[in-house]
Structures are given as C-alpha cells and as structure tokens.
C-alpha cells in the first residue's frame, strides 16, 4: 500500500525527523488559507500514487496565497497516470543549500533492509544508479540489530563533510529506519533530504510503501488507505479477496493462482491476443468470489471474450462452476465465455456447467486459442 506524501511526512515527524511546515488541502480555498497562514511563497503538490507528478504539472510554485489557490484549482481533479488528484499538500518554499537522497528498501537477494544514500538527491534514484552509481552508497541492515549508530555515521560521512550535518543525517537515518519498521514498510525514502543555508538538515519530501501483509496488525497504518485515490475496480477486487490488475487487451482472464494467471496472459499473447487483465481468484473455494470477478471483468467495455482457466487443487472446480452459473444467471453475458477446468471435482463442475448451457474444456492451450479467436471475431 502506498502512502501519500502528507501521510509519510506525518510518520517521519512522529519518528522525530525534522520536516518543514506543511498542511494538506482538499479544496482551493483550503489551499489558500494554508498558504496565507505560512505567509510568503509556497509549493502546491498533488497527492497522488504516481511517479512523475512534477513533469505532469502536479507540483507548482506559488509566490503568494492567491497564486496557491489558483494552482490548487488546476491541480485538484487533474488526472495523473489514470489517477485523480483529490488532495494537495501546501508547504512553504525552502531555502536549499544541497539535496541528498536517503532511502530504506527491502533487498530480496540479501534478505535484509538496505539503507541507500546519495548526495545526488532531488532526482529519481534509479536514474542516479544507472548514470552515476559511484554516487550511491548501500548498506545492509541486520534486522536483529537495526541500523547501528556507527553505520548511520558512515552513511552520513558519505553525504556531508561537516560533523554537525553528519550527525544530523545519521540521526535522521536511524529514525527513518525505525519509521520504516514501525510502519511495516517495504520502502521508505526521503528525496530530497536538504540542507538549508544555515546548516539545518530537513526531510523535504517523503515516500513510504507499506507491505500489505503488515496491515492486519497495524490498524493505524491500515486506516491511512485512501481508496478514493485508487482504481475502483482494483479496490472492489481487493475487498472481495481477489487480485485484479487492469490491462489494455480484449481477453478478460479469470484464473486461480498468480503464476498460472500470468502464464495464461502470456499464452493469450502467444496465440495473438491481448489480455484485458490479470485476475487471480486465489486459493480458496468461494462461488461469491467468482461472481465479483465476472462483474469486474464484464464492466470493462474493451473485453470481447472471457477466459476461465482453473486448475483445481484447493480450489474446487465445482465451486467455480457454481459461481459462473450464479453470476451469469443474474446478468446475461454480452460476450462469449471460454471455460477451462481441470483437477479437483472436475467432473462435477462439467455437469454443473453443461446443465446451465456452458461447455468446458480441459486443455489450457485449446481454451486460450478459442478465447483469442472469439475476441478477434468480435473486434
């Protein structure tokens, strides 16, 4: 789960990290009032779960409150990478002497959190990694010990020359690591970490991504979820216990298991089609899930054919068949459907489907070929 910048800022602040003033607004009037309260120039920043918001016009400098209002009017409601901006963060402009990058990521290879810092901050760290890798220092953290003071100091010396700034940065890194762990993060970054002309070290922008699996035991973090800023179909899928990702093709896919779902999409492509989505109905057997899955798939007007690919294990084929019959009983399908089922209770499922007028295949390649063909015919 992605947190908004203003939410991440609050978590950093709670961890003791110095963060400049700032407040969040949902309307232009609120943005104006906040700017007025700060006095002087402000930056109006779109709060949206998408990178490149600056380039998309979602971050604007305002010299006064009136201009802040004008910017907020433009930014609120704009769409960046398919997501609508619902809120803006208004912060006073900062005097910046230097910009660095400080981040914590979970590194798969070393199976540890890794601190990553660079004196080349303010820009995308992947770009720094690609062009000037020598400007990045990485340090694996032993999660049993946390980020040790001397490790933070070593990273601090990579960023700064003056001892007070080194110490300030080291303290911020340890606090960032703590905030990362406390939030159940998979990523936490400050970009840029700035120094001001008078030598202070401040976190100007913050990003935190939380491991979804941590939310159960962290109700405070879970409450930060902003479903208004997410794709509605994906929200609906998640609430039903499905994983759905919207794509641009015409073959709607409904599969059990993430690996098989990906392989099914790949096979659609292999046979000349384009998948309309990734959809994993998961391991458990629940006809109601299938109903929701079909609702989501059929809501997409680009879908010209529907493909079910079920390999029964824990998932029972008859449950899936019942789900299909229930869903199509409620709303008649406007597009053709191809069903492939094999494994647990396969025979039972075939009977249920045939009784409802559907036919079922058992071979994956055959089913995918058929679905691609039907989608092509409809186009």
């Amino acid at each position, binding site marked *: 789960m992605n947190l908004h910048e203003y939410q991440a800022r609050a978590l950093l602040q709670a961890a003791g990290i110095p963060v400049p003033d700032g407040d969040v607004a949902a309307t232009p009037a609120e943005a104006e009032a906040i700017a007025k309260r700060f006095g002087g120039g402000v930056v109006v920043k779109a709060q949206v779960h998408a990178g490149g918001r600056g380039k998309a016009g979602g971050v604007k400098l305002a010299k006064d409150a009136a201009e802040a209002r004008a910017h907020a009017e433009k930014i609120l409601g704009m769409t960046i990478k398919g997501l609508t901006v619902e809120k803006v963060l208004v912060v006073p402009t900062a005097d910046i002497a230097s910009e660095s990058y400080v981040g914590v990521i979970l590194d798969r290879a070393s199976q540890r959190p890794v601190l990553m810092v660079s004196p080349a901050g303010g820009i995308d760290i992947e770009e720094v990694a690609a062009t000037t890798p020598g400007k990045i220092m990485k340090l694996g953290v032993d999660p*049993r010990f946390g980020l040790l003071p001397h490790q933070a100091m070593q990273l601090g010396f990579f960023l700064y020359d003056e001892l007070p700034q080194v110490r300030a940065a080291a303290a911020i890194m340890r606090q960032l690591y703590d905030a990362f762990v406390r939030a159940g993060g998979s990523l936490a970054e400050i970009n840029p970490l700035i120094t001001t002309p008078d030598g202070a070290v401040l976190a100007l922008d913050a990003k935190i991504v939380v491991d979804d699996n941590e939310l159960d*035991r962290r109700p405070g973090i879970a409450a930060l979820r902003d479903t208004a800023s997410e794709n509605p179909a994906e929200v609906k899928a998640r609430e039903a216990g499905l994983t759905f990702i919207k794509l641009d093709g015409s073959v709607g896919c409904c599969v059990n*298991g993430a690996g098989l779902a990906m392989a099914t999409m790949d096979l659609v492509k292999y046979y000349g089609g384009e998948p309309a989505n990734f959809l994993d109905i998961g391991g458990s057997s629940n006809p109601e899930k299938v109903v929701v899955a079909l609702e989501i798939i059929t809501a997409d007007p680009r879908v010209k054919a529907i493909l079910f690919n079920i390999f029964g294990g824990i998932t029972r084929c008859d449950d899936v068949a019942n789900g299909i019959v229930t869903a199509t009983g409620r709303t008649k399908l406007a597009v053709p459907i191809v069903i492939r089922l094999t494994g647990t209770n396969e025979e039972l499922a075939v009977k249920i489907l045939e009784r409802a007028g559907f036919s079922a295949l058992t071979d994956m*390649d055959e089913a995918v070929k058929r679905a691609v063909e039907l989608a092509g015919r409809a186009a």
Partner: protein
Amino acid sequence: MSIFIDRATKLVVQGITGRDGSFHTKQMLEYGTHVVAGVTPGKGGQTFADKVPVFDTMAEAVAATGANTSVVYVPSRFAADAVYEAADAGVRLIVCISEGVPVLDMTRVMPYLRERKVRLIGPNCPGAISPGRCKVGIIPGSICREGTVGVVSRSGTLTYEVIHQLTRAGYGQSSCIGIGGDPIIGTNFIDCLAAFEADPDTKAIVMIGEIGGTDEQQAAEYAAAHVTKPIVGFIAGQTAPPGRRMGHAGAIISGASGTAAEKMAAFTRAGIAVMKRPADVVSLLKERRVAA
C-alpha cells in the same frame, strides 16, 4: 530417491485442527505421508483422525514422536512464530504453506534458521511432494507420478499445470518443490538445483520462474557452473506491466529489473532450454533426449 522429503520424513502439522490444516492432513495421510503429530495450543491430548496425537507445543510433539519435519498451516500473522517454534523444537525441515507472512518477519526468521541449520521451504508455497513416497503441503497427489524429473517452481497452480503435462506424457517426477512466491523465501532455486544435481534418481530438472527479483538469473549462472543434468525453464509474466505486483508479493518488475525477458535471456545463456508455454515442457525434454 528424492530431495528434502521421503519415506524417512516424520511430519508434525502445525495448526492441525484449523480448516486448512485438517483438510490437508487428511490428504497427506491418504497419500501415505508419516504424519506423526499435530500441534494446536490448548488441544493437547486430543487425537486427530483417530490416529495422530495432538500436542500443545512443538517441543512436546517433537520430544514425543521424534519428528524431523513440520508443515505450517497457521494464519499468516502467527506463521513466523510457528517457524521459530519448529526450529526451536529441533526439526530439520519446515514447510510453510501460509500466505501473507510480512516480509519484515522473514528478514528476522532467516538468520534464526541459518544459525540453527534448519531448512525452510516457503512461505506462501504449495509445499513439496516426492511422488509415491511423501507429500508435505497441498500439491494434489493425483496429478503426480513417480519418476526422474525434478520440478522446482515459484508458483502453485502453474506448477500443477506443468506436472500435469509431464505426467500425461509419461514423465514421472523425483520430487516437486514449490518454493513460494514471496520476495524472501527459505529455499531458493539454487538450493533445489544443487539437491537435484546430487540426487542420483533425478535425470532432468524443470524450473518454473516468474517476474521479479534476480533468483532465476543467479540460478542460471549456478546451473551453468554446477549442474550437469538437462534443465528446462519457464518464466511467467512476459506480459506483466512494470511496477505492479502480479498476485505474488514477489512478482513485480522494479524499474527495468526482474523482467521475464532478462530471465529468459539468462536461461538461454546458461544452456537452459526455454519453454514458450507450459505445454512445451514435454517437447523440450524429448529434444534433450530425456526418457519418459
């Protein structure tokens, strides 16, 4: 022969009285797995399915039965502790089926297990099966057949699909290991390749990877240097968009890293035959002159 589990496996089921635990324990018993004990705190003294004694703690279960392996079916928020408990009780292999284990938990679990030299398979995996001998986890026994192909996979149902294709074509399996779809897992491709290479009854290996991370690339390098047996590989997610988690917590292309294309290229460089689709597994094994 087989890897990790066989007829000597003496299994404890952690969470034996839960919904998933009880269902799959029955399946494992039917398959012939030596399920010697179950654990559910507060249910110590009961007997499961008229034959498996239930204990309050793993320590008691292992002390009473000499179990050497455990399988974890507890809800995800208790899964890490179940793994710690199994390791403390002295089993040598833990198979964690539970899905949704926080990754930060895993960063702490792994050094704990390493210090104790305990192998973990999973989490978020279908477990392992050595057809005809032992099944630990949830892979349907009916689709498997005794044989000489070793299967290792990050996936669940996609593995079943491939096993199904193998069995249909007459290729039995020595062992099938689902290593799990999470970013941090206990046993990786390299561990399995090394074990299959050392297993005299495994004649060929099928490796099913997916997008995200660099495990497949490292495994390919390892295979080129250390594995003499023919390998056939598949990567799921060729059509996955970058930056999105494709169901599995570990299946995500970060920036330009972890794509199917780079993994398939690594396979090719290492001499691993690349399947374009699951059904290709049979023809590629035949091409490599692996007998069914």
